[in-house]
């Protein structure tokens, strides 16, 4: 490593932050783009599992809340792609790479949303898992990304409240409504346990080495379990993992090893809804290509 790069590494590892105009190693820039772009893609693809249910929301209040939540996700994508744009990759290129399958998005957005129970579980627990990762990004070594994370975390915390309220209302309802939640939890537990990634040692994770991430994968998963499993139990739900327990002495949660092969397969575009969702986005983009051309011609 060149001395300049070594000094940069030590700077970020010591808690230093970098602005968009500052010098940065090419490897750091490339890793930032990859990481932040995947975050933007995830916000955008995360719209699709929920948008189907915007039309089916069962009360006016739920309709407004879900529409606002999904709108927030699009707004996050817009902000995040702007950060990527500053680093040198235009939004249009990100969108092209997304629909062509070259770029990735988070595992949880490759799965179907089968019932209104899923809508509650996604907003509560998927957003809870996401906010744990995002809160850790408040300390990201790249300052522009860390700054937008404040707004994003603030909004995500409302999504969790909305999701918890949907779940709580269903759990206080009929047997069939409670069953909707339990079935959804059974479906989402596997993907949720995979969400924070395999338990690679933080020091071996290049995203941690550059302090793009400020915590290891397993730390994030432990935080999730510690924050949410007690709440899940309190509501009378069963977590579909017989081995799940907290060691009260060490404070560490034990669980059945998540299916890492499934995670790899899903994030490389082989999930149950991966291709359908990408096709949907591709088609929407083709249908509206003439609009972008018209607007850009007018702007030119």
């Amino acid at each position: 490593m060149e001395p300049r790069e070594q000094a940069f590494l030590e700077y970020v590892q010591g808690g230093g932050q970098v602005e968009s105009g500052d010098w940065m190693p090419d490897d750091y820039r490339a890793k930032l783009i990859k990481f932040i772009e995947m975050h933007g893609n995830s916000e955008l693809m995360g719209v699709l599992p929920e948008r189907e249910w915007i039309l089916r929301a069962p009360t006016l209040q739920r309709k407004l809340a879900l529409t606002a939540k999904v709108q927030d996700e699009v707004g996050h994508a817009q902000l995040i792609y702007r950060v990527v744009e500053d680093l040198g990759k235009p939004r249009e290129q990100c969108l092209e790479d997304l629909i062509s399958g070259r770029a990735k998005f988070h595992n949880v957005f490759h799965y179907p949303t089968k019932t209104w129970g899923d809508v509650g579980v996604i907003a509560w627990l998927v957003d809870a898992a996401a906010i744990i990762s995002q809160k850790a990004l408040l300390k990201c070594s790249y300052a522009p990304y860390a700054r937008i994370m404040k707004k994003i975390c603030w909004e995500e915390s409302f999504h969790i409240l909305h999701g918890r309220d949907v779940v709580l209302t269903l759990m206080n309802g009929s047997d069939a409504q409670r069953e909707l939640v339990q079935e959804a939890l059974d479906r989402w537990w596997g993907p949720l346990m995979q969400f924070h990634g395999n338990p690679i040692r933080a020091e071996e994770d290049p995203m941690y080495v550059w302090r793009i991430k400020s915590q290891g994968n397993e730390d994030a998963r432990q935080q999730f379990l510690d924050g949410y499993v007690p709440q899940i139990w309190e509501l009378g739900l069963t977590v579909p993992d017989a081995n799940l327990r907290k060691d009260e002495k060490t404070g560490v949660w034990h669980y059945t090893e998540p299916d890492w092969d499934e995670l790899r397969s899903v994030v490389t575009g082989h999930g149950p809804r991966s291709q359908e969702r990408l096709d949907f986005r591709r088609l929407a983009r083709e249908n509206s290509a003439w609009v972008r051309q018209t607007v850009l011609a007018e702007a030119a």
Partner: protein
Amino acid sequence: MRHLHERLLEIADDELVLGWRNSEWTGIAPFLEEDVAFSSIAQNEIGHARALYQLVARELGTTADELALDRQPGEYRCAPLVELRLVDDWAKTIARHWLYEAADWIRLAALRRGGDEDLAGLAAKIDREEAYHRMHADMWFARLRDEARFQEAVDELWPSALGVVDPELRAELAALVGRPEVPAVERDAHTDALRELWDEMTMVRRSEPAGAQW
């Protein structure tokens, strides 16, 4: 003269159904900025519908949710213009948006002139948000006005747009958008699209007996 609550339900149903339709653009608009814009417009419209339903619900001894979601498709009073499923056709979506906002402006102005104080106040409040919808619609009109597909969309939807306002306001609407007054597609001519939308928008709610909490 129709009863006041029938007139309010017409407006509320228009706003509800158009809000539901506009929310279909969430995630797939031509620009991320338009995703966000259409989502905001949809939320405003549904908020307006809720405020109007609440006024009617007080009179009828029911709730806004029951009015919005527990009636049969044939009981809705919305205009065919707002029922159409136009998602993935941006030209028609903008044509409807522009025509509807013009019609709604004229309708709200008439309510503000009317004698009912509560209603005039609510109309003024709604109009404060609608002003931004009109700015958005006008911006898109300016961008697309020379596109043949947009002009065709406006031609096609114009008779339905006239049906949004009462007959005595139609000349005013025609003058506002600069088109000749033609026979209108009236409110009682529901489209198949309404039935499909109703099936979807009430499916979760219908899965439990009336009165269930969601």
